[in-house]
């Protein structure tokens, strides 16, 4: 698949059409309809209320923070908020679904049409439509590989609030899908409504994939379920699109089916248990009433939204004059953007951006830690930039100071003092150093004066070495030229 998503088949070009359903676990202390906890990694069945386990006579009561998180997410996706929405039962039998139905939203979801803007590598922006967002319960976990003849069931996850975010089938390539998922994840993390942690399963993706000749009707789609990393989603889509193209070109037809991504083999496979079309027999849950939202409350939430990545990026470019590339890198994670903003406050934003995206991110990547664990604080980095700006230290030596800051967490001023790295700005001292160097290099001085200009750099190097790199480069230049000129 090319970056544009076009596949070169045997008989011509094919376009890939992708729609994504992302299940994002809502950040909340308790579950959607019960008071059990939502923490990851607890001992099996220790975070289960009788409501979650669907014991006789148990009833659901909705968690207002979960509703708030869904509405905030809708606002962040620039979507319509439906002031009246309804919870429906989706009925089917599976061991991790204790009630034999999932409480979800079918015809009247809490959030309607919205959009997500993708920042493409070539600098353009592509808009992907959001069809809807609704709230629903997560199911528990079935473990099929613990025992030869039994499936083990853990209901800790059963009843946790999920936001199902459905995109329009606007995506056209695996690359776009990667960008979309990262952008969506970023927005959710900015809003604080989902931590986007795909390893822990707090964000999962189902991909609907079909192929068609460019310009023709949509083809039959297959759904690839429950892929838990962006990389795997992209791989799965590439494989699936190619599978469909080959199938059609060999004279076959794509049948609508549910597939899963076999990570080990890099292929998609049909899911046996889902082969029959489910009749979910949706109907409004009679244990619940319609959810009615106060428009003033919604507007209140809108007013309190944090600055989101697109707006922040635009502001960095227009007000702080950063390049779009730098701005994009900085806003990808809210924590990075906030870190940068603290460093840039009262300083040259460009310098701040360079240090953050270059040296700091480099160090963090090397150490495999996130910015939340950075050994260097924003204040400390800001101090370092100040020390360069006021001439205390040269830009070159600042890099060494930074490395020391990363290793020890010490303040830059302290490191400069302890290591005696203060830039030498005393003209006399520099002049003496230059004299010493030139006196030791009489032949080369003669050659330079005879026309070998290239030796200039050599003298600069010698002077810097003689001053342990501390001489102010501008002064060195100034004095050295004068002395060499005679």
């Amino acid at each position, binding site marked *: 698949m090319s970056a544009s998503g076009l596949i070169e088949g045997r008989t011509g070009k094919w376009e890939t059409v992708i729609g994504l359903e992302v299940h994002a676990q809502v950040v909340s202390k308790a579950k959607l309809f019960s008071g059990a906890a939502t923490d990851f990694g607890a001992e099996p069945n220790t975070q289960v209320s*009788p409501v979650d*386990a*669907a*014991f*006789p*006579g*148990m*009833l*659901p*009561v*909705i968690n207002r923070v979960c509703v708030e998180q869904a509405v905030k997410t809708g606002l962040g996706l620039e979507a319509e908020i439906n002031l009246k929405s309804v919870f429906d*039962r989706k*009925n089917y*039998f599976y*061991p991790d679904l*204790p*009630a*034999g*139905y999932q409480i979800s939203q079918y015809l009247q979801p809490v959030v309607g049409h919205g959009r997500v803007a993708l920042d493409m590598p070539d600098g353009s922006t592509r808009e992907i439509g959001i069809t809807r967002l609704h709230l629903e319960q997560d199911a528990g976990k079935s473990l099929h590989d613990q025992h030869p003849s039994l*499936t083990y*069931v853990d209901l800790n996850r059963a009843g946790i609030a999920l936001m199902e975010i459905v995109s329009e089938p606007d995506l056209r390539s695996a690359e776009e899908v990667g960008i979309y998922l990262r952008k969506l994840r970023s927005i959710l993390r900015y809003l604080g409504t989902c931590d986007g942690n795909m390893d822990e399963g707090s964000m999962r993706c189902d991909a609907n994939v079909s192929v068609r000749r460019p310009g023709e009707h949509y083809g039959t789609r297959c759904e690839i379920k429950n892929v838990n990393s962006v990389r795997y989603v992209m791989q799965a889509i590439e494989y699936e699109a190619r599978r469909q193209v080959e199938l059609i070109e060999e004279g076959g037809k794509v049948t609508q089916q549910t597939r899963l991504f076999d990570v080990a083999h890099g292929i998609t496979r049909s899911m046996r248990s889902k082969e029959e079309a489910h*009749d979910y*027999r*949706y*109907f409004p849950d*009679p*244990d*619940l*009433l319609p959810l009615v939202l106060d428009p003033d409350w919604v507007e209140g939430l809108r007013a309190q939204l944090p600055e989101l990545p697109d707006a922040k990026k635009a502001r960095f470019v227009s007000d702080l004059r950063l390049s779009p590339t730098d701005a994009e890198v900085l806003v990808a994670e809210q924590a990075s953007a906030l870190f940068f903003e603290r460093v840039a406050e009262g300083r040259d934003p460009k310098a701040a951006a360079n240090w953050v995206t270059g040296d700091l991110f480099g160090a963090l990547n090397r150490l495999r830690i996130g910015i939340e664990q950075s050994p260097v604080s924003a204040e400390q980095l800001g101090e370092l930039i100040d020390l360069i700006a006021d001439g205390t230290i040269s830009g070159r030596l600042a890099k060494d100071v930074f490395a020391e800051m990363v290793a020890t967490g010490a303040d830059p001023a302290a490191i400069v003092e302890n290591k005696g790295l203060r830039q030498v700005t005393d003209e006399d001292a520099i002049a003496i150093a230059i004299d010493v160097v030139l006196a030791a290099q009489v032949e080369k001085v003669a050659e330079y004066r005879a026309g070998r200009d290239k030796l200039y750099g050599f003298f600069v190097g010698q002077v810097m070495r003689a001053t342990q790199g501390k001489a102010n480069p501008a002064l060195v230049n100034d004095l050295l030229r004068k002395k060499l000129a005679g």
Partner: protein
Amino acid sequence: MTGSLTSLTLAETRDSLARKAFSARELTESYIAAVEATRPLNAFITETPERALAMAEASDQRLARGEARPLDGIPIAVKDLYCTKGVLTTAASHILDGFRPPYESTVTEKLWQAGAVMLGKANLDEFAMGSSSTTSYYGPVENPWRRPGDNCPLVPGGSSGGSAVAVAARAALAATGTDTGGSIRQPASFCGIVGLKPTYGRCSRWGVVAYASSLDQPGPMTRTVRDAAIMLRGMAGHDPKDSTSAPVPVPDYEEALTGDIRGLRIGIPLEYRAHGMNMEIENLWYRAAGWLAEAGAEIIYDISLPHTKYALPTYYIIAPAEASSNLARYDGVRFGLRVEGSTLDEMYELTRAAGFGAEVRRRVLIGTYVLSAGYYDAYYLKAQRVRALIALDFNQAFEQVDCILAPTAPSAAFAIGEKSDDPVEMYLNDVFTVPANLAGLPAISVPAGLSADGLPLGLQIIGRAFDEEGVLRVAEALEHAAQFRHLPGFIAGGR
């Protein structure tokens, strides 16, 4: 001594305990003996005499300290649909074998907090689906009434048949029931006692095994209207654990029993007179209208509830649909019966086939069908629209009247086994009761007279939403006028 203690009403018993005429323990001992004596009627699935005695002793201590709670020492039967912590709760179904809930239903918790004493879990139609109490896994319940000179056992009505029998046979002072399509009122009518279905949302459904969520309502079954008022106060109240529970305060329902119904407008619905009505019941109905008129009420004949005839089919779409979903949790995984299978689906299918009786199976299948793809609009959605019209009928009627007087059931109690071949014929038992469930309105059945073959006939008062006070007031007037003093042939401890 036993006979006389258990012949008192709840109100009389409460006052006697306060006067220290006897102790709560003595009273409970009498009732425990009565429960044992009533075993031939199969009104109880589980008897809890030790627990009852312990609760009675606690009541006695409070009574001695002068800290009596509203229902202290009052022995009651609990329909085995209410989850009682640590006590077997079966819903009269094989599929809940061995289920001991780790929680107590809100309504029974309130009753125990008020000092009531638990005699045991009363028998019922399986999962509250039925009008005869003959579908229980634990065997049918028998009505303590028989036709004079006839040895044929009769049904007590259903689904709260065990509760009705316990009260009628004086094996309990009161009982809790649930009413989804008439399951409190119709057995009350068949057994000659009082049965009240409160407004939907008045009593919490939390911890009550669900049949049809938008219709189920817990309520009291008692000997007198005053007793029902006292019990209702102990059962009602907003519950934040039930999203459909009404956030309205609970008045003192006893205070509503002023005895004065002058000026109240009582409607006689035109469409309830159709259906080739039983003449005895119609006569009793009209006689009762006369009584209420004498007591000062204004009777308004022939008010129209135009969609009455559609109430039964509406109910028999909506209730099974909700039930089919509510009963999906009975799958052999987390509690109750499990029949092993070589695959997951086989385990589900065999467990549920073995665990559910024929009527439950019938309704689950109907319910699954009416929700299924292609049929949802034509059946379920259609029924919900007709339901809206039925509710509207009542709203409009209540602009002209304050409450409605109607029969409770189309006949007196019939023989066990008499109507069991044709499900639709059995469903017709509910014709007068389901409308109040569909509209969520309060309704009470009061014993008003005897049929020609000596069996009790009840009449129903239906009121506006949350006007249980009005309904109880008119019901008491009816009770006063009817002077129903008859007792069934079978009374625990003898007549």
